């Protein structure tokens, strides 16, 4: 599966467009990480616990998008975009989306 933020795959023509595919996940941070982060909030710097949590969540959203593309019979997802929105205090939704295509 080729995934790309470009609109085409260099050197390969798109044969079929299969429409939009997306994957999302909603994650809440857990209290242990929250306590550690509130300490870190005093001295500043990277909040490693949250960094890991969010990149893990993003990977999952991405995997779901790829699975959906596979189910449609695509071999590439182009123009991939990510967005994050906070649903409630302490929980955020991560969405990955793109267009599923078949390339040569």
């Amino acid at each position, binding site marked *: 599966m080729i995934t790309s*933020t470009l609109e085409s795959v260099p050197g390969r023509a798109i044969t079929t467009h299969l429409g939009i595919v997306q994957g999302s996940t909603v994650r809440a941070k857990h209290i242990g990480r929250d306590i550690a982060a509130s300490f870190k909030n005093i*001295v500043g710097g990277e909040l490693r616990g949250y960094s890991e949590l969010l990149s893990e969540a993003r990977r999952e959203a991405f995997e779901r998008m790829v699975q959906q593309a596979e189910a449609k019979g695509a071999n590439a997802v182009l123009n991939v975009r990510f967005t*994050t929105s906070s649903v409630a205090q302490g929980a955020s939704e991560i969405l990955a989306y793109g267009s599923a295509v078949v390339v040569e």
Partner: protein
Amino acid sequence: MQYLSEFANLLIPLLLLLAGYGAGRLAERRHYRSILRREEELSDLIIVICKTLPASMPASDTRLVMGSVVVSVDYFKRFVAQLRMIFGGRVHTYESLLDRGRREALLRMQKQARALGAAAIFNTRFETSSISKGAKNNIGSVEVLAYGTAVIP
């Protein structure tokens, strides 16, 4: 007894301010040093915002790469920013926070691309979101994501 508790009420935020000022400054300076060093190391891996590759560029493979970081300001800077919000104007303390976040995210993305043996990263995008928005006293941590397409010659 009452005086003592009032004294403590005043003292704790003051100590936190001092701790935040000292530790925050140190951490920021160290972070900037590391950012500058790694930017130097990765300066030959160009980041492009364009969508199309130049025809002369060899591209045997393209791969999605990303880097993200959650970064927070310290207690002192948050206090300064809250003061600033009374009068309005530039909030310097948050500017450096976002600058650090963006550059760190870019560096992590470049590191991933370098591991793949890429020559450039095309169509790079940024995504910024504030964590713990709305929680009281908690404004000041942001997540920055940078992503793009690594072009492998």
